[in-house]
């Protein structure tokens, strides 16, 4: 019964979405508010029906309804309760439901927010949103139906991919998809702006917060993905330039470019065409990412199953890209810039350079990702592109971006004077050089790391000095300390939110540089009671223990660790044997620290427990990535907080009294 209900709900949602999209568009053409209200009710209906689909599928998982193929392939009777719920999005079909559900949720928020305030753009934006939702519902109806029946009904299911039995499985896809789907809103408003011909700043002002929210969730999703990789996969890394990681990273790069370039349009009426192109590119890349993961055209650790889903996504991608670009071409005459670039040494040009570097990075990642396909198409040779290529090309680009991160926010608009440059950048440059020199003296030899440290020092100094200068100015006008600092940050929340996000990125950059340069590892086979030493830790093998868990067999090693100060901890890395997996799954054990993590992976062992091989890693500064993520969260929250400042002018006389 469950599958029939679920399928019916899917089809009904598809019909409603198609109707709602058409009705919203027609209401915009004819100016009929009754149709518009009807399309809004359709949007609510779509959300309700997709919610029902999700609940039905969860119900099927909880009741072990193996007559549903998706349930049988992604769970078995041993799967713990908690993962039977997250198994919902553990594979292709369910992940599409999650996607569609989030999209319908965003649509609902959009309806409630702009129904009364944006009469021109909103109906078209609603039509675009519902149209995109209709596509995902079509995928759920034809090529990837989550409620497909399985016959004959197996006595037990296959079980969830063991790597997905982790808390990261809740947060990673949810954050990532909130990011991916979030870009649909600015895209929809951009399309509306092109259709209506109101190509000014309106759509950018409306979607500023949406873009930041989507960008933030995408960043968070990427970071949690890194954390998952780090503590589940057992290779001690957080990023592998895998095609699917790249697929999520490319829209992040273009969205970052977009976030910055819209500021120039707001301020200088330039880059209208460029901003529209960027949001089209960003949204297309989110669809490209789902296409890549679900089509099976490129081998990847993340790849979902195949089937005709890929063709559907490619057709949709073609429709989106060709449709959006044709609209853009049609409105070309209205997209001329009203301002122009006055000088190379200006904030505009710093932002433009930032955009060019980000797009260059996105392009190299794209090129590296599809190169295996290109090579096979042209030369018939199967190749794979690995981390060395991506690192070689991207490290200089990212270093340049960090440099611009320091320059952009402080250099003057239009034309920077020598005085402006000296006042804002002299001290930070000196601080950056001093930081690198100090680290060199302390024994850091790696050139790339030294350059990175210098740049991070420079950017951090620009932010700190700028804030100090502004706070001092407030003090001089009579504010109390608390008001001059915290109040200032809240009042100019866009500016300082951006700065805090930059600090988060700097922290992450330090984490990446440090972990690449200073991590160390060794491997040893230990007899019972033997010890091995690495980086000041002494690790002693205490024995093995075996246990039968609900859905796997687990062998756990016990290792006591002593550091320079004495007993430190006991680590228990394990190997898990799942019947459905060819190779055992390593369960890493680790102690996280501010400067270094101790990370143990159990290798081969003797069945009688007399000896075991252990891989020991000391991963330095990896925690900075996660701390950077927290800083990023604070900054994003500050940046989207309601603005308190009315005009971007110098402090007004009355403001102090009010504040």
């Amino acid at each position, binding site marked *: 019964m469950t599958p029939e209900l679920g399928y019916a709900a899917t089809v009904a949602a598809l019909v409603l979405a198609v109707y709602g999209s058409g009705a919203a568009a027609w209401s915009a053409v004819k100016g009929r508010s009754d149709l518009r209200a009807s399309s809004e009710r359709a949007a609510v209906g779509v959300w309700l029906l997709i919610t029902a689909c999700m609940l039905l599928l969860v119900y099927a998982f909880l009741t072990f309804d193996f007559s549903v193929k998706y349930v049988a392939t992604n769970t078995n009777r041993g799967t713990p309760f908690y993962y039977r719920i997250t198994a919902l999005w553990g594979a292709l079909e369910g992940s599409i439901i999650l996607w569609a559900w989030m999209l319908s949720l965003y649509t609902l928020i959009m309806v409630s927010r702009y129904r009364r305030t944006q009469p021109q753009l909103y109906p078209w934006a609603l039509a675009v949103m519902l149209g995109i939702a209709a596509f995902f519902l079509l995928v759920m109806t034809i090529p990837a139906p989550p409620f497909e029946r399985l016959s004959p009904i197996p006595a*037990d*299911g296959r079980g969830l991919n063991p790597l997905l039995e982790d808390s990261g499985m809740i947060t990673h896809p949810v954050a990532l998809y909130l990011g991916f789907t979030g870009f649909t809103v600015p895209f929809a408003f951009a399309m509306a702006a092109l259709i209506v011909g109101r190509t000014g700043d309106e759509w950018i002002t409306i979607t500023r917060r949406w873009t930041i929210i989507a960008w933030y969730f995408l960043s968070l999703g990427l970071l949690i993905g890194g954390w998952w990789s780090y503590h589940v996969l057992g290779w001690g890394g957080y990023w592998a330039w895998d095609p699917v990681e790249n697929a999520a990273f490319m829209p992040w790069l273009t969205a970052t470019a977009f976030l910055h370039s819209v500021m120039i349009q707001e301020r200088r009426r330039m880059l209208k065409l460029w901003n529209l192109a960027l949001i089209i590119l960003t949204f297309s890349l989110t669809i490209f990412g789902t296409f890549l993961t679900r089509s099976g055209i490129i081998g990847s650790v993340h790849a979902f199953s195949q089937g005709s889903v890929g063709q559907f996504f490619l057709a949709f991608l073609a429709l989106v*890209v060709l449709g959006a670009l044709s609209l853009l071409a049609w409105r070309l005459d209205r997209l001329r810039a009203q301002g122009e670039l006055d000088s190379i040494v200006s904030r505009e040009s710093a932002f433009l350079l930032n955009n060019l570097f980000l797009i260059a990075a996105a392009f190299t990642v794209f090129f590296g990702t*599809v190169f295996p396909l290109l090579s096979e198409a042209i030369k018939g040779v199967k190749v794979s592109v690995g981390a060395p290529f991506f690192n070689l090309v991207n490290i200089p680009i990212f270093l340049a971006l960090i440099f611009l991160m320091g320059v952009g926010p402080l250099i003057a608009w239009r034309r920077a004077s020598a005085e402006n440059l000296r006042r804002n950048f002299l001290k930070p440059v000196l601080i950056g050089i001093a930081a690198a020199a100090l680290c060199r003296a302390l024994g850091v030899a790696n050139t790339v790391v030294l350059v990175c440290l210098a740049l991070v020092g420079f950017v951090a100094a620009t932010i700190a000095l700028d804030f100090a200068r502004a706070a001092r100015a407030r003090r001089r006008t009579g504010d109390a300390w608390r008001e001059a600092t915290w109040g200032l940050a809240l009042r100019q929340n866009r500016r300082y939110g951006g700065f805090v996000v930059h600090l988060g990125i700097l922290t992450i950059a330090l984490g990446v540089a440090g972990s690449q340069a200073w991590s160390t590892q060794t491997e040893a086979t230990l007899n019972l009671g033997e010890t091995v030493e690495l980086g000041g830790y002494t690790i002693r093998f205490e024995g093995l223990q075996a246990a039968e868990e609900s859905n796997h067999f687990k062998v756990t090693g016990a290792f006591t660790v002593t550091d320079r100060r004495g007993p430190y901890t006991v680590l228990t890395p394990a190997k898990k044997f799942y019947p459905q997996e060819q190779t055992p799954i390593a369960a890493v054990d680790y102690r996280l620290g501010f400067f270094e993590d101790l990370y143990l992976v159990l290798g081969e062992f003797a069945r009688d427990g007399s000896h075991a091989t252990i891989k020991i890693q000391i991963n330095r500064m990896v925690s900075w990535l996660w701390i950077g993520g927290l800083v990023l969260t604070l900054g994003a929250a500050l940046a989207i907080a309601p603005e308190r400042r009315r005009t971007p002018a110098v402090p007004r006389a009355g403001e102090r009294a009010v504040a």
Partner: protein
Amino acid sequence: MSGRRRVLRWAIPLAVVPVLVLLAYGFRTDPREIPSPLLGKPASPFALTTFDGKAISLASLRGQVVVVNFWASWCIPACYDEAPSLERAWQAYRDRGVVLIGVNIQDKDEPARRFLTQFGHTFPNAPDPSGRVSVDYGVYGVPETFFIDRKGQVRFKQVGSVTDEIMKQHVEKLLKEPA
């Protein structure tokens, strides 16, 4: 509107067409399709005991066409999809000098037996408790099916479910060859 602008107007959307074509080309390739190094080589010998307790060895089957199918009861849906085709092929070819052997890997005894009962399999099926046979054949995932000719050489490897057509095509071809 000037000519240059008109060209630009077309050029913007058309610029992405080559990328889309390249992506479409991707459907014609399979990144997982790696040719087995075992093709054309002698099949590595094995001796197993079937679920019914009978001994079965590859060496004793020389001169016959042998099809070795690796499966598991948890392999949903691929092993379930192909199970009826396997039994049909066995019924069709068992009297024509063809032996079909099911090798059950990474499984537990009880669900494996339930699988065999569910599909009414009558061809010999044996567990591979140590995993030796699946390692020798380089089995990457289930199901995989190997077709061995009368001279004992591996001639074809099917990754994923077999169908009636695949069974017929390869078995008939190998049957035509002299011993």
